[in-house]
């Protein structure tokens, strides 16, 4: 018996190791959301972030010329936007007075640099230099001046991992600005400037150029944050839903700075959703 065991272990140990390590890997993959693995990943994120930050600062110094040009362009756009906003604000205030509504309190935002980016055909991720000590929590929305960039999925004391819109695991519910149609924006890989709008019935009309905004019932984002604009619609006789291409509001190829919306996720709603998923 012992000879047989020795024979198996000696002659087949590479196969045994292969099976054991593959099983351990799959077990880690299945249990990746457990607190222990989250803690380990958090520690590695913190360590890597600490190494990455000085390198990023170095790169940023040499990129100042391009960044300055981009900022000037953005500044010009923002100046025009501010003029429009002022006009709209005056009109808005009059309407608010009429309706006797209180002005909404501006949301608290935390500025952060993108210090690292994990490139992947389908699962892009970003790391930002704001963490739990800055009030950042898992589930918070990440924005730019153009619109929704993603959401926080992991935090360490000084850094956080962002799952951007251009990650195939990311979905966000949206509403079209004019036609008020509800759908889900999902990116399934490929071009990082466009995504798909899902669940719009073939029988409903949606306009090209229409803006898509986050809905009131998004699980992480506040309402009315721009996500993208409808670029192309396509319907065939056999499909129940339209195929709609969306140009994303945020340019992820040049993303360097973001804001974290420090509005705390609605824990009760999320718990209820989780319970419902378990129920299913």
């Amino acid at each position, binding site marked *: 018996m012992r000879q047989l065991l020795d024979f198996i272990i000696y002659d087949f*140990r*590479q196969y045994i*190791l*292969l099976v054991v*390590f*593959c099983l*351990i*890997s*799959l*077990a*880690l*993959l*299945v249990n*990746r959301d457990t607190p222990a*693995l989250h803690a*380990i*990943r958090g520690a*590695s994120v913190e360590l*890597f972030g600490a*190494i*990455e930050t000085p*390198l990023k600062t170095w790169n940023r110094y040499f990129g100042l010329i391009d960044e300055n040009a981009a900022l000037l362009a953005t500044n010009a756009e923002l100046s025009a936007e501010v003029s429009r906003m002022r006009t709209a604000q005056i009109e808005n205030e009059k309407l608010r007075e009429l309706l006797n509504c209180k002005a909404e309190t501006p949301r608290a935002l935390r500025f952060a640099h993108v210090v*690292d980016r*994990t*490139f*992947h*055909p*389908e*699962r892009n*991720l970003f790391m930002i230099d704001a963490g739990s000590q800055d009030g950042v929590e898992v589930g918070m929305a990440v924005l730019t001046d153009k619109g929704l960039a993603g959401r926080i999925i992991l935090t360490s004391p000084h850094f956080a*991992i962002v799952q951007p819109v251009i990650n195939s695991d990311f979905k966000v519910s949206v509403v079209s600005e004019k036609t008020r149609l509800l759908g889900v924006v999902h990116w399934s890989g490929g071009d990082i400037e466009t995504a798909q709008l899902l669940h719009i019935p073939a029988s409903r009309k949606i306009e090209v150029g229409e803006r898509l905004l986050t809905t009131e019932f998004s699980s992480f984002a506040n309402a009315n944050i721009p996500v993208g604009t409808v670029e192309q619609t396509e319907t065939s006789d056999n499909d129940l839903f339209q195929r709609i291409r969306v140009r994303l509001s945020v340019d992820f190829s040049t993303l360097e700075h973001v804001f974290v919306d420090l509005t705390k996720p609605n824990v009760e709603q999320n718990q209820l959703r989780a319970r419902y998923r378990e129920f299913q």
Partner: protein
Amino acid sequence: MRQRILWYVGGAIALGFLQKLLFDRLLVFGAKPDAMLLLAVWIARREGQSFGTTAGFVIGLLMDLLHGTMGLDAFAKTVSGFVAGFFSNPDDLEKVSNFLIATAFAALFGTSAYELVSTALQAPFFKWTLSAVATSLYNLPFAYLFFEGTKRFT
């Protein structure tokens, strides 16, 4: 032996950061240069299949910590290390062609394993095949440079 293992660990950590900071950004058609794969192949050829499989697993775990999805790289690199172990004939250690073939097969099987698990067997056949073949071919020039650079350690 202990000293060699320390060298491997040190090399893995250094190459891990190089991978994350540089090679991950050289993405072409879903393929990128994989310094950790080259290290796993190099170790597997030198130390044999069992050691290569173990080294692949440990290297993969390191990449998982840096990349995000725990277990995915560990799985792929375990397969790569195992496959590369078939090319561990001591007579061929100094042949660059043997290293390139080992790298090509390790990348092909490792990437296939990665794609199949990461997409939960849902990816279209052509998609993961393209990714596996592209990774396999894309890594060959880097494998040649790696082999030449590490020749004196072989």
